[in-house]
């Protein structure tokens, strides 16, 4: 589509040149089966094409799925349990061989192999037979995963266990990228994945730390409306410290002037430092990603079984200091709803326990008194000690300070990252009160609300995300109903309503939604940052 209204300068983008990518995390998982989500605007998008893909547009327009390998975003059966796709003509792998529906089926199948773990759980949960299938390495049967049918070389039919109106959004994930069975080398595939996109891997050293991508001659621009592929070469250097990345981008000497990063944001200190520098200020892109940091309650633990206590805490929270602790108003927006404040999620403004900007301790005290804790209350707040400003211990202390005013003494239990994750995601060890965050797998209320509030997603013996262990038939039913909708706008409205309904139960206290600020090199043009995940879209930029 036509690109780039909000950004950028100096003439139309041209083909040619080398784009440098400075990243902190190496692309050590470069296997489409192992990537958790689509890799969005990131490096994998240059090599893997999928059935559908994100709309590469700035802002909210970018939250829609659009066709990629397929001719459309999928044709659902009436109840949305069967989805049919047709491949475009003229699709080729980097070796010139044609891309067939079998290649896509195979790519999905191998994502079930335990050797290639790491992907998102949706395919397992949605596809018929997905819960038991173990991938093509173990299962040598001719038909493989039978819920994916390939009646011919161009057609794929997916059979789902229940209606899933958002299947086109799922089909953006890299598991839907074609993998030629003959070229599959199992766990070693990631060293040199076979490209279906505009670039192919020429060099991959240091386990994805240094990648060199060059044009894939068999990629045809005609079949791909979404990727531009302006630069001739893409040089990805990772394993860098975030501070180094931002420093190099702002200095922009040599190759760094034509550099971007796809995984590093500006931290509060960097933002403060850039401050009034106008030149740098112009080179900052702002991205939104559906994310919420919140206080989670486990009502199975006293005193959080008492809604009044939960409400009191909701009233007492001082979101201003929380936002400041999380990096200030440029990097975090105060949250009063669980759903991120974006239309695609179905955001419907609400504030069931209005705490104002700095908290309402009086109201909180009142509630506490009513709950029988008039003389004060001591609770323990569990948090992660990892030094990441979005969840920094300062957020916990900000909560602690605010609750102090309401007569609640908060003891902090900071846990080391692994320990923290182990505990909060285990039904057995789950603390009563902790800081948690949730982000969307794609921009919709479904993957945002269901794992957290769907009673059937309470996981007993693995990672559980339904922290409140809410199993409310009404909520469950509504989730099922919305999933049946294939009109995503209509669905969004109902997700918003559901969010408000759940919010009134005070099962969590939304704190803030993060905002991402990304710096890019001075010679980089055609900046596109969509609200899908707030990442600068690498497939759009040009350096000439």
């Amino acid at each position, binding site marked *: 589509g036509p690109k780039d209204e909000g950004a950028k300068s100096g003439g139309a983008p041209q083909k040619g040149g080398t784009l440098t990518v400075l990243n902190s995390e190496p692309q050590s998982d470069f296997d489409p089966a192992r990537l958790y989500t689509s890799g969005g605007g990131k490096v994998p998008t240059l090599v893997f094409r999928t059935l559908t893909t994100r709309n590469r547009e700035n802002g909210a327009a970018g939250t829609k799925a659009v066709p990629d390998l397929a001719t459309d975003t999928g044709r659902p059966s009436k109840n949305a349990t069967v989805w049919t796709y047709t491949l475009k003509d003229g699709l080729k792998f980097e070796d010139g061989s044609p891309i067939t529906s079998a290649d896509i089926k195979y790519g999905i199948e191998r994502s079930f192999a335990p050797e290639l773990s*790491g992907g998102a759980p949706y395919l397992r949960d949605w596809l018929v037979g997905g819960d038991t299938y173990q991938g093509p*390495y173990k299962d040598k049967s001719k038909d493989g995963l039978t819920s994916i049918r390939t009646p011919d070389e161009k057609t794929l039919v997916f059979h789902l266990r229940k209606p899933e109106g958002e299947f086109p959004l799922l089909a953006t994930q890299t598991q839907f990228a074609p993998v030629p069975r003959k070229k599959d080398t*199992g766990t070693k595939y990631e060293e040199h994945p076979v490209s279906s996109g505009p670039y192919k891997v020429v060099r991959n050293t240091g386990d994805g730390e240094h990648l060199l991508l060059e044009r894939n001659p068999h990629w045809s621009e005609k079949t791909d409306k979404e990727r531009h592929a302006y630069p001739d070469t893409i040089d990805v250097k990772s394993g860098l410290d975030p501070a*180094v990345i931002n420093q190099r981008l702002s200095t922009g000497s040599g190759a760094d002037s034509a550099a971007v990063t796809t995984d590093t944001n500006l931290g509060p200190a960097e933002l403060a430092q850039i401050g009034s520098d106008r030149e740098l200020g112009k080179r900052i892109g702002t991205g939104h990603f559906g994310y919420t940091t919140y206080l989670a309650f486990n009502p199975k633990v006293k005193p959080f079984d008492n809604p009044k206590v939960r409400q009191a805490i909701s009233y007492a929270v001082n979101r201003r200091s929380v936002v400041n602790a999380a990096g200030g108003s440029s990097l975090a927006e105060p949250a009063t709803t669980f759903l991120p404040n974006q239309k695609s999620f179905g955001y419907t403004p609400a504030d069931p326990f209005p705490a104002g900007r700095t908290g309402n301790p009086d109201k909180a005290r009142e509630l506490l008194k009513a709950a029988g804790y008039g003389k004060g209350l001591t609770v323990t707040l569990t948090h992660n000690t990892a030094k990441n400003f979005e969840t920094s211990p300062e957020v916990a202390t900000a909560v602690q300070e605010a609750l102090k005013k309401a007569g609640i003494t908060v003891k902090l239990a900071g846990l080391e990252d692994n320990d923290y994750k182990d505990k909060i995601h285990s039904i057995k060890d789950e603390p009563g009160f902790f800081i948690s965050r949730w982000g969307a797998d794609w921009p919709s209320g479904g993957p945002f609300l269901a794992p957290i509030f769907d009673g059937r997603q309470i996981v007993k013996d*693995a990672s559980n995300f339904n922290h409140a262990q809410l199993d409310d038939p009404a909520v469950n039913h509504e989730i099922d109903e919305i999933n049946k909708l294939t009109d995503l706008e209509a669905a969004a409205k109902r997700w918003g309503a559901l969010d408000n309904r759940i919010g009134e139960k005070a099962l969590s206290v939304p704190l803030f939604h993060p905002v991402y600020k990304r710096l890019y090199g001075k010679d980089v043009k055609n900046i596109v940052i969509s609200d899908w995940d707030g990442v600068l879209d690498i497939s759009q930029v040009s350096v000439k």
Partner: protein
Amino acid sequence: MTGYVLRRLGGALIVLFLLSALVYLLFYVAPGDPAKLACGPRCNAEQIRQVRGQLGLNEPLLTQYLHFLQGLVTGRDYSTGTGVLHCDAPCFGLSYQNDQPVTELLAARLPVTASLAWGAMVLWLLLGVGTGLLSALRRGGLTERVLTVFTLTGSATPVFITGLLLLMVFCAYLQWLPFPSYVPLSEDPEQWAWNLLLPWTALALLESAKYARLTRSSTLETLAEDHIRTFRAYGVRERTVIGRHALRGALPPVIALNAIDLGTMFGGAMLTETLFGLPGLGQLLVHSVRTVDLPVVVGTVLGIGTAVVLANAVADVLYALADRRVTLT
């Protein structure tokens, strides 16, 4: 001498063996489930179970450890799904996180750490031995006082403070130097050195202080020895006495300490690597501990341990070689 070296090495092997066992044990109590981490954030119980089997975590700890030891000696084979991946003889296993042989990961990080360590060493030797000699010669004078303050400050400053101050001055205010990031030596030697200059300096400032003190006291000690008196009594110039006789006697402990420091640097530069964002062994260790990546943790710890233990052994041998008197009494 050979026998001594052999016994030293035997001892080193035992230490490494114990070290690996200890890490296995510690790992056992450390929080986090590697299978969950490797599987991704939202695996179900069945997936986790399968991944656990895939990683060999279902076996009892002892069996795992024995397999690990076996792998060290004979190598191991791993299934890639479509075929097998052979991990050659000193096989520390595959990373849980990304299935890379640990040896490869270590090999990829080693140049960074080695660049850091060796470069810093050259610098701290120049700085340390130089100032040490100077203050030994000008003892009691103003020069010594100034140098003493310098060395004390140097050794009293944690490396991340020195590093930060250096960053503040040279990168932020003066902007003379790039914010360090690693450029391989083979790629661009000039950039390599330029980028590493600050970390080298930070480490060298810290370490050189120790060397200055050691060189100083060692030189003074040698100066107090009888053979120095002999040469003075024969009219040899003070300069020659110090340059030829005192320095030669003062060097063995410096050499020995240097070997040890170089060894520790291979593992101990964790803070420096973190501060300057250099992707070395120290950073790998931090990362792998965070992700409960046992093979990498064990591999790195053993790698670092080997460096430390070897350095100690080398230091002893060097000391014995450099100081003839040790072997004879």
